[in-house]
């Protein structure tokens, strides 16, 4: 059993991996920075007793980060398996 995949498969695997990486980084940037730029507007909305802008910085973004990493991890595993690049 070869311990590596063919160059064509490797290139396709890496292209998909890279796309996933950029998607994750965009989501990361949105919930790290962009959404908090609208904090004053969001504070006009009340969410379970919180001003929404405050809530996003204190909890909302954190929940998104946790979910994002588990989602990424599942997606990347699927990509690895699709191209036979997963661990045996």
């Amino acid at each position, binding site marked *: 059993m070869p311990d590596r995949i063919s160059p064509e498969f490797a290139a396709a695997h890496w292209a998909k991996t890279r796309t996933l990486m950029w998607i994750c980084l965009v989501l990361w940037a949105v919930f790290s920075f962009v959404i908090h730029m609208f904090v004053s507007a969001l504070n006009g909305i009340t969410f379970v007793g919180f*001003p929404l802008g405050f809530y996003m910085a204190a909890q909302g973004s954190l929940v998104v980060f946790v979910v994002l990493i588990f989602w990424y*991890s599942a997606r*990347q595993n699927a990509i690895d398996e699709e191209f036979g690049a997963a661990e045996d």
Partner: protein
Amino acid sequence: MAAKGDFTDNLGRLYSIYAGGFAVFVIALWILEDFAGLPSKVILWAYVALTVLVYAYIGIMSRTSQVSEYYVAGRSVPAVYNGMATGAEMSGICFVGMAGSLYVLGYDGLAFVLGWTGGYVLVAVLLAPYLRKFGAYTVPDFLGTRYGGNLPRLLGIIVLFAASFTYLTAQIYASGIIASRFLGIDFQIAVFAGLAGILVCSMLGGMRAVTWTQVAQYIILITAYLLPAIWMSTVKTGVPIPQIMYGSILGDIATMEQALGVATKDFHSLPFDGNGLWSIEARDFFFLIFCLMVGTASLPHILMRFFTTPTVREARKSVGWSLFFIFLLYFTAPAYAAFAKFNVMDMFVQAGGVLAYDQIPAWMYRWGNIGGNTLISICGAPVTDQAAVMAACGADKAAGFGFSDLSLGKDMIMLSTPEIAGMPWFVIGLVGAGGFAAALSTADGLVLAIANALSHDIYYKMIDPNADTKRRLFIAKTILLLVALLAAYTASKQPSDILSMVAWAFSLAAAGLFAPLVLGVWDARTTRQGAIWGIILGFGVTLYYLVGNVYGFDLAKGTGDELNWFDVKSISAGIFGIPISFIVTYVVSRVTPAPSREMQDFVLRLRAPKGGQLMEQTH
């Protein structure tokens, strides 16, 4: 090896027994305190003695004579447990100071909450799986292999040392403060109690021992963090979920801020001190988030946690679990701060807005001044005696002082709140044990990261590549002892700036290590020269600005020769170095000859999990 298999197979059962045993211990103290009137001093000593004994037991049971066990826990740590250990590793900066920072800063303090959590997305997506696939023992090990030769390795060690040593000193300092406050012993002695706590966890078993003690420490510290918050939430709102219930408390705080005449810019929930999105305050908020996030993804003691999982797949999942366990702590901190602030404000509201001088509560005197540090002041005077406070407030405040005259140090709020809220000693002692666990677990990770870089990268890779296992482990353990002693000695001197230096660690690591690590994986064209110049210039500019901004060229504070670029704060100094290191690494790599075919092939293999790790276990 059979014993090890038994241990990892039974992790769930062993740690359940441990957690159950700890719960029984807490309940027993509760009963003894309530019905037998157990003295507070006995309760506090019992907490520290029992927990340190447990850590020592785990540390001794995990002793090892195998190199891979010592450096990477035999790469056998399941994702969830590695997550708990990482959670413990990130707790040191949060446990003592975070709720206090949020109490003082309100919304603007949430930059710390965001900064120290979001960085894990970068760890998961950009680095952890690839570093695991590579199979190094240390972060400089990766730089040395990917870029070839000793210079990249040495630069990596310099950045690691600059970022981690002050951070380690601050953790030992914190453990000393906690031990001296809760055990009532002298600070100088308490520091060496902290040192002993660190050594029993790390010296005999390296990463293996640190991992399993950190899991045990996480269980204690999360209980200690949640219990007082749940307590306050139940007392105030009747619902034991502080993280949700403090929404309405924020409303109460806003009402009381109006009633007590708090200046608008100090309102708790108000972003950027009331300035708009284009203000310096808002810019600082975002710069800080960015530097802390990138720093989290660059600090070697965090990255090396993901070297210990059995597979690449587990490494990815483990980052998720790490952030989950960190999240439990960090999303409670703002709730803790809000309830603590509510309690203090309410005291003033009940008193009609001003508190008379003979009404100063006893806890303010107890926490007013500890080991020469002023933690509570009224009208700018340390709360040590009533006459001094009255003199400082002056004749126009003869009737008493208001909420705005009271200043609480951010490092006392978490530890003192249970006392302020009148909780029983078994809770107060638990918080002390939790704070001690948090400081120890972070210090363990840091001391190991520093000592491993010195013993593996400098001694083994540069000085004596022929050393046998026995000698390598002897050297590793000796260096660990020396690093810990040096840090404890520095902490016992109480350098005044040590706490502010912790936040610098993130900027220094980010500017020095992030670009060469990320580009080393994601850009096969990155060359040795590119990485070398990227580290030197990125780290150099950040260090130059940090020292220049804080001390100036004469290395003395406040002499007027301090650097100031665009009013950027020293804590965000990485904002200059991070882009510089990326640009320099990229550009220099493009103008120097491409890496060898073997190296480009090596990078390609790094990217697919298949085929086992690239470095041999015995390297």
